[in-house]
């Protein structure tokens, strides 16, 4: 019983710490985002290229990934806050190789208000060099990977909102 208690305390510390510690990591701004063309839960084709001119958060996630579940409400908040600020922004959350049934059940429960894409064969997971979840890529307005982030985070934090706002307002200099 004592061991279980200590384990729970340790697990809580590690989990909380992982949410707090993760932060956006700047890339050199020259990496073009790999192709991303997948179906959403309604079976409609969605292409990353269609969102040029917007900052796009591409997230690779899974239903069994606890940080993914925890951070999704903050992703809803991020979308709302950027909409209010009239910042061109889109979230594409790519599920890693699970069935439509599993994902739909998760969506009904957690209620993400952004686009969920289905990578049932995991082809995009590999093309994007993703080895863990959640793996995040912030794509600039010209389709280049500008920031990456591994792990759970509070997406509606002031720091992240400022970073995305700045990215949306950048001139073409860095991404031409």
């Amino acid at each position, binding site marked *: 019983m004592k*061991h279980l208690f200590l384990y729970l305390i*340790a697990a809580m510390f590690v989990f909380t710490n992982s949410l707090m510690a993760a932060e956006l*990591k700047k*890339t050199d701004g020259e*990496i073009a985002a790999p192709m991303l063309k997948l179906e959403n839960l309604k079976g409609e084709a969605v292409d990353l290229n269609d969102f040029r001119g917007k900052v796009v958060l591409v997230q*690779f996630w*899974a239903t*069994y*990934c606890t940080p993914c579940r925890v951070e999704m409400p903050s992703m809803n908040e991020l979308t709302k806050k950027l909409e209010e600020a009239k910042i061109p922004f889109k979230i594409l959350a790519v599920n*890693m*190789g699970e069935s439509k049934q599993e994902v739909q059940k998760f969506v009904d429960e957690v209620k993400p208000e952004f686009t969920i894409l289905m990578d049932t064969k*995991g082809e995009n*997971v*590999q093309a*994007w*060099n*993703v*080895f*863990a*979840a959640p*793996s*995040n*890529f912030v794509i600039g307005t010209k389709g280049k*990977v500008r920031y*990456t*982030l*591994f*792990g759970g985070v509070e997406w509606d934090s002031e720091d992240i909102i400022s970073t995305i706002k700045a990215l949306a307002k950048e001139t073409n200099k860095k991404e031409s």
Partner: protein
Amino acid sequence: MTVRLFKSVIMILLFSLSTLVSASDEVISVNADDETEVDIRIFKADGNQLLVGFACDQGSSISEEKTAEALAKDGIEVWMPDMLSAYMLPKVRSSLSDIPTNGLLNILEKAKKTNKKVYMIASGPDTELILRVAVEWEKAHSDSPLSGVILMFPRLNKQKPEPGKPPEYQDAVGKTRVPIMLLEGERTPNRWGIGHLTNALKKNGSTVYAKLIPDVRGYFFKRKDPNAPENLVTSQMSGLIKASLFFLGRAHK
């Protein structure tokens, strides 16, 4: 009153004794180095395979104990050295890197003296430990190779994953020639790294088999919230290990 109390004490003692006897055959102590003795819990068997599992607490968790008992019944001897207690290390992940390789080599030497085929098994970050030991064993005993290692849900990254970049592994990865069975849960993001890790493990000539266990998450056998497939696989863990030993045996043919 006194008689009733006496009977109760006797019953409790008998029950405790029967639990101990059924849990394992014996506990032996091995000198890991000049100053350290390691207790090894042994599940004896008559077959020619011996599996050394580096679990904490001599594998006292229920599923590990049941698995060891089932393996022993099928002729596979299981040794569970309690490394953390021996070196007075706290039972946390970071302690594993503090376990000296020499101590484990002495245990393997003792295992080898049984003339059985010796295998090692570990899960999660402990897998680094057995790869490190395998490398050192080969350096010191090139004429007496280990028969294989089983890596369950290996966590061998050197640092936190970085999206868009392939992982960097611990130094022991890709340094041994020992046959390796890699088991990973289907419902874990690490499954996407299996191909990359397999190639890294093969670099020094190891034969590497990699298998995905359907419908289970990482560490499923230690979870407090197992689902039906996880309960099923946990109850059949000895079968999974036996199948792994079968594959590892093929590597020598």
